[in-house]
């Protein structure tokens, strides 16, 4: 069995007295779409923030491609090949979509400060290369219309796509998507599902996703991890996890309570 792309072992995060994540372990295999589900407050985004190195774990470790990830500072994560989108969109509001995407290509820059200041031939070549990469992503996601628009004026659905595009510009090995369908209508969610499938099959990128929309989860995921109150509840295929009694209880309450939902005879 090939080594997992990302493996988390006994991850624990404590914020003061609150245990946000408690001994969470999982593996993400190369090339799969792995989804974290769970009610709000389960600790899913916290796990993401651990992988992005925005938070420091109280205990436990994460290995990416066999190397220790916890030892890395936040800005090194992109260079290793991990890109992410944010739950509450964190775009550069006063720049155009294209500029946002070009910033996304930053890890692949090949020029240093002096080359930039003098704008040497090498700098020009690198710029054109970055531009070509950004255009590929624009084509992939259909953002041509919005290329030069300032992000601050764009509608929410488009901004979510730009956020995704920016992450793709980093040419990652692992893509972290934080609630990609939140705030999107049915049609936009379907587009998102197609894109995630294309990202997996055409671009060969491994996807680790946090998601609430169960139909999207069932459609695109290879494996699902259910979390509740910072702990792992279940791990398996989407169907297995959704049928898991513990998961149902976490979302809907215990089966005993269903009697209160039954209609009383007239």
């Amino acid at each position, binding site marked *: 069995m090939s080594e997992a792309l990302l493996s988390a072992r006994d991850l624990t995060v404590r914020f003061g007295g609150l245990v946000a994540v408690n001994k969470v372990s999982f593996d993400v295999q190369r090339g799969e779409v792995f989804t974290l589900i769970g009610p709000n407050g389960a600790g899913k*985004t916290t796990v993401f*923030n651990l992988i992005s190195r*925005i938070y420091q774990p109280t205990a436990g470790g994460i290995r990416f491609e066999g190397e220790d990830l916890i030892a890395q500072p936040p800005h090194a994560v992109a260079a290793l090949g991990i890109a992410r989108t*944010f*739950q*509450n969109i*964190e775009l550069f509001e006063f720049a155009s979509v294209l500029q946002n995407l070009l910033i996304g290509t930053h890890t692949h820059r090949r020029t240093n400060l002096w080359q930039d200041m003098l704008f040497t031939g090498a700098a020009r070549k690198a710029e054109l290369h970055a531009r070509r990469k950004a255009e590929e992503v624009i084509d992939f996601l259909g953002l041509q219309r919005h290329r030069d628009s300032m992000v601050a004026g764009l509608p929410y659905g488009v901004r979510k796509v730009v956020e995704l595009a920016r992450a793709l510009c980093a040419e990652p090995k692992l893509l972290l998507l934080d609630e990609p369908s939140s705030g999107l209508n049915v049609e936009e969610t379907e587009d998102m599902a197609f894109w995630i499938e294309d990202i997996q099959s055409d671009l060969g990128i491994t996807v680790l996703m946090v998601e609430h929309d169960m139909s999207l989860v069932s459609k695109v995921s290879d494996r699902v991890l259910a979390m509740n109150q910072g702990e792992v509840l279940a791990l398996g295929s989407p169907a297995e996890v959704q049928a898991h009694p513990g998961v149902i209880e976490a979302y809907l309450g215990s089966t005993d309570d269903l009697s209160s939902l039954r209609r009383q005879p007239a």
Partner: protein
Amino acid sequence: MQFIQLIISGAAQGCIYGLIALGFVLIYKATETVTFAQGDLMMVGAFGGLVLMTIVGMPFWIAVPSAIAAMALFGMFAERLVIRPVLGQPQFSIVMLTFGIAFIVRGLITMLPVIGTETHTLPVPYKDMTLRLGELVLAYEQLVIIGATAVLCLGLYAMFRYTKLGIAMQASSQNQLAAYYMGIPVQRLNSLVWGLAAAVAAIAGLLLAPITFVHANMGFIGLKAFPAAVVGGFGSLPGAIVGGLIIGIVESLSGFYLPEGFKDIAPYIVVLIMLWIKPNGLFGEKLRKKV
């Protein structure tokens, strides 16, 4: 003995810094705006008292509240006219606006015929009186400053802690839109806060005037109040006063014990040290964005 004198005079000066810093922190807590105009508002308050007492001829105990009330109105007026339209702009722009207000105010005072360009004494009833405690000679002016500051602080602290007004102010500073939704009269609150801050500045000016005399460049002391606010922690009212006291005492001691020139930059060295050790100040809150 010299040491205690230095501490007391440092504390008195520190209270002034603290009062001006209090004004900043009030405005910052309520509207998250940083204002550089407090020092000059203090100067206007002092001039106001001067005019009322010398030219209009009011007795001290009427002139002081009148000057404070007038400044409060001025603060509310300034907020309504120039601050309200620009809320929502980047912090940097609003700071520049407050610099502009400071310039205008200082320029107008300087333009006043006869009194604008001169230095004046403020006729306070406790002028030049001293208290003797054993070997200590304490100037009434300094004691009044410390006493008045203490009273004011308690009052403001109680207001923020125990009244709806205080909580509403904090809410509107953190998320204005949400505050609007909750029915908080955000704009009226902001007016009130600016009025309050201007009143505090006026009090500071009237307290300081016996020591430094009334002149148009009094406001530059306001720049030293910033280190005070930072040392205390920018969102904290007691912090502003504590920060002010620290700065004042350090300044006073370094003026005596350290070579010439250190007195002027002592506050700034202190603030740099504080930013290095504890960036959020002594009582400041460490907030982190949740993504």
